[in-house]
């Protein structure tokens, strides 16, 4: 498939940044409003799918390498598992720390002043410990994974020119 008409491409150029910013907003406020890593990642991936439909898969494959998306997805998975293992590793340094795998280690301490408050009050974004960081890592996994699935399937089943 080699792209659609000029009207579709123009509308896609206008609408694409708004959809993408909305998806990133849903990921970033996932611990305060309905949303989170999966839902926001799906919104961002659908904006990329809109570009894929409007411009055609051959144009996208020339611009985006498939290996870079694989690197992004692996990076998200490594961030997720690494955040889980920090809760175990902290036991070695602080003997009084009650740690476990996927322990929320940023809540209930004053040493590191990021995301460590308890969420009283309306929409305080500096709360919830490692949950926003895990939202971002899961968002990376979902964006890269769904876009790779759509890109590979669209490119493999494309219609040849001249048939």
């Amino acid at each position, binding site marked *: 498939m080699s792209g659609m008409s000029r009207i579709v491409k123009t509308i896609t150029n206008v609408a694409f940044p708004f959809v993408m910013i909305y998806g990133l907003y849903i990921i970033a406020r996932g611990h305060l409003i*309905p949303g989170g890593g999966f839902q926001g990642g799906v919104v961002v991936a659908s904006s990329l799918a809109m570009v894929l439909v409007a411009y055609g898969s051959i144009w996208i494959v020339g611009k985006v390498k498939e290996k870079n998306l694989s690197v992004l*997805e692996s990076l998200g998975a490594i961030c997720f598992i690494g955040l889980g293992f920090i809760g175990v590793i902290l036991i070695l340094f602080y003997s009084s720390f009650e740690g476990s795998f996927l322990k929320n280690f940023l809540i209930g301490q004053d040493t590191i002043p990021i995301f460590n408050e308890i*969420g009283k009050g309306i929409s305080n974004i500096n709360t*919830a410990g490692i*949950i926003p960081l*895990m*939202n971002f890592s899961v968002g990376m*996994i979902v964006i890269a994974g769904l876009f*790779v*699935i759509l890109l590979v399937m669209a490119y493999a089943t494309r219609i040849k020119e001249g048939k």
Partner: protein
Amino acid sequence: MSRRNLVAAIFFAIVAIFLVFGALMMHPFGEFDEEHYPEMDQYIIDNTQNETGADNGVTGVVFDYRGFDTLGEATVLFTAVAGVILLFRRLKK
């Protein structure tokens, strides 16, 4: 109607009867009496703001109380992407 369709229709009717009577015998929609009181969910609703710090209870459950579920889910997504790329690699050239 062949014999295969007849057997399939009988199986479908049995499953339909079991599912519909099972739905009719459940507790009323939206009401929890003493026997079906949701203790675990009530604990999570009461304590999610103090223990995880998140205002959103569903995010607190997904990423803190049940983090292993989310890890397995990410693994399933990763495996599906790897499978799709593996299946379509030979068609690309």
